[in-house]
């Protein structure tokens, strides 16, 4: 059994069953990787690297997209 992890996503604490890739995280959150930009611990992770980047306990993730604005 993998150890459960706690990740802060967009300022909210979330629990997951174990470490996973950022792609896996987006899937778990039902988000389209093409529609969001991902920052892991304040570093941007480009889309091609999402599958190879692991989310670990204590990581901070920011998921952003475009909204209405001037």
């Amino acid at each position: 059994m993998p150890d459960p992890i706690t990740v802060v996503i967009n300022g909210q604490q979330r629990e997951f069953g174990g470490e996973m890739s950022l792609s896996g995280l987006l899937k778990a959150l039902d988000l389209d990787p093409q529609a969001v930009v991902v920052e892991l611990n304040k570093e941007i992770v480009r889309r091609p690297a999402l599958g190879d980047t692991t989310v670990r306990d204590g990581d901070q993730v920011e998921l952003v997209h475009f909204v209405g604005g001037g």
Partner: protein
Amino acid sequence: MEIRSNWFTSSVAGERNESRGIQRMSTTAAAAIDQPLIIGGREFQSRLMVGTGKYADNDTMTRAIDASGADIVTVAVRRVDLDRTKEEGILFHLDPRKYFLLANTAGCYTAEDAIRYARLAREAGFNEFIKLEVIGDEETLLPDVEGLLESARTLVKEGFQVMAYTNEDLITALKLEDVGCAAIMPLASPIGSGLGLINPYSVRTIKRRLSAPVIVDAGVGTASDACVTMEQGVDGILMNTAIAAAQDPVAMARAMGLAVEAGRLAYLAGRMPRREIAVPSSPSKGMLD
């Protein structure tokens, strides 16, 4: 008066000439004597740029943007709402193939934050343009020019086409141009104020002294403001609230599109000199005894 919405529906240039009346005439006349607007090596048809914030609903927003005739449409970078992830992003409502998406750094108060938001925006994968805002004061939303220059310098080095929102100060505008900004965006008046062009002299001076495109950003309240602003000779206007907060945003968007064209055309045409005395338009000869 009932206004039929299709009256206001213009669309991309080219099709625009197919529409009727004043629009066809002015578009043709403007095109005949005007140069296209080029920013950061890209050519744009419309000199009006519009924001996507503050609309009552997305349908009104898309119809208003269409009616404005704008090519460049601004968007903001924000966290995804994890509790309702579907259909919340602007791209569910706005076709990125139809408009040129210009991301902003609105809400950033430091150079560091603005740089972070700009990098995130570029990673969305549309273009390398950023409307750079570094706000210095919550009440007035006036720019922090120190943070603006610092972040502009970094972003230009990273290959961004920086369109810098600034105040109507010539020296800051010159420095931003020197740093390599693709466009300088002095305000007409504070963001969302609708006070119109408060300082036409300063904006005119900036336009006269800079080689980079000058796009007035923020403060326009109604069509006459847009027209007067364009008459100063600036290259374009970016606005959001004036359209979104109008009673009928779609009608106001169309009005703004016409006003920007009218102001541009009047500037190119060259206005008559102002006189302090009257000069009759009809001949003084040939009057009856």
